[in-house]
């Protein structure tokens, strides 16, 4: 009973504010006409992430027998190259730089979000949606370039009675337009839910104190492990779905 009261007190107070970590605050104000172009904490962590990627990718030596840093860079390269080859085939090669950049960026953002006190850029839907929209528009343009107006056949399923065809075309179009949204929502929801959960359990640890706080602490350790996994997996899922959409645009086999 006493512990519950303590928890309630803390829960209502400042100890438990799980959404505070997602707040975007401007660090350097850049008023660009009417446009909000502030350099925020989100931008700062993006810059830090990109700097880390550049260190791994550029500062690593180019030896025949790789060192640690070079190994990381090479593993990342091979991982994405294999993924692209398996899903798209050789036709996907020109798009490797884009997929690689996307994967490494999301991975870096997700992973640095696991550091205490850091800001998880991918927990904001506007960030993930911008990336997903770029993928969606890019894949659509590639589809139209490769197939011309024949790309619209993607919306016409084969072997369907003509009575049902208009209905199915509408359904196919809706299904096509769900792509950028489901792509972005998946990443954003995973990151935000995970980090909120971590904060809530962290609040429990503080709230329950030395006596009972060990139980949520143990859960938190487990969730932290899971979150590292999710951080990697969601970067992978984002990249692999991008490859699948690219494959649809290039090869256009009806599903």
């Amino acid at each position, binding site marked *: 009973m006493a512990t519950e009261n303590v928890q309630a007190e803390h829960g209502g107070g400042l100890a438990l504010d799980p959404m505070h970590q997602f707040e975007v605050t401007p660090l350097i104000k850049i008023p660009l006409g009417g446009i909000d172009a502030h350099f925020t904490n989100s931008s700062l962590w993006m810059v830090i992430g990109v700097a880390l990627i550049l260190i791994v990718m550029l500062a690593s030596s180019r030896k025949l027998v790789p060192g640690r840093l070079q190994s990381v860079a090479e593993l990342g390269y091979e991982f994405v190259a*294999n*993924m692209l080859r398996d899903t798209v085939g050789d036709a996907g090669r020109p798009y490797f730089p884009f997929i690689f950049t996307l994967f490494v960026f999301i991975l870096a953002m997700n992973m640095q979000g696991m550091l205490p006190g850091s800001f998880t850029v991918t927990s904001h839907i506007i960030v993930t949606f911008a990336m997903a929209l770029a993928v969606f528009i890019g894949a659509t343009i590639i589809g139209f370039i490769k197939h011309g107006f024949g790309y619209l056949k993607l919306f016409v399923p084969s072997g369907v009675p003509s009575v049902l065809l208009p209905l199915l075309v509408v359904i196919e179009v809706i*299904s096509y337009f769900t792509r950028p949204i*489901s792509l972005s929502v*998946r990443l954003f*929801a995973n990151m935000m839910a995970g980090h909120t959960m971590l904060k809530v359990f962290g609040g429990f640890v503080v709230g329950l104190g030395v006596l009972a706080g060990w139980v949520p602490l143990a859960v938190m350790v487990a969730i932290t492990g899971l979150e590292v996994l999710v951080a990697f997996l969601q970067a992978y899922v984002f990249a692999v779905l991008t490859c699948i959409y690219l494959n649809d645009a290039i090869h256009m086999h009806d599903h």
Partner: protein
Amino acid sequence: MGDDRSPTSSDQLRDFKERLNRAQASIRERDREAYGSSSAYSFGLRIATELVVAIAVGFGAGWGLDHWLGTKPWFLVLFIVLGAVAGILNVVRAAHSAEARRHLGIAESTSGDEPGSDRMERSRKARGRQGQEDGGNGERTG
């Protein structure tokens, strides 16, 4: 002297290769189990978002058309239903492609995904054998 030593060293090399392959196979096995459970988790989430998002897109399209044409509730009603249908279609497709991947190419996709896979495994022989192993494993986990 060189002729004397070369057969033993090639024997040793073969022995080493065998042991290496065995060790790598067991590591792959273990990794795949971990990967399988975690990818099931992400697959479940993917299915859930697919369904919800399709309905949301249907809602948006219907609301937009109503707003544009001034036919207040009708397109909204129609497109929510169509969105739900599209969502189910997406789910069925995702399940189909996952199924197909598990039966056909999980060997390639997982060994490609494993950061530990090296060029030696890329040889055709190793790949064929690995494919058989993976097929069996796919059945079991499924």
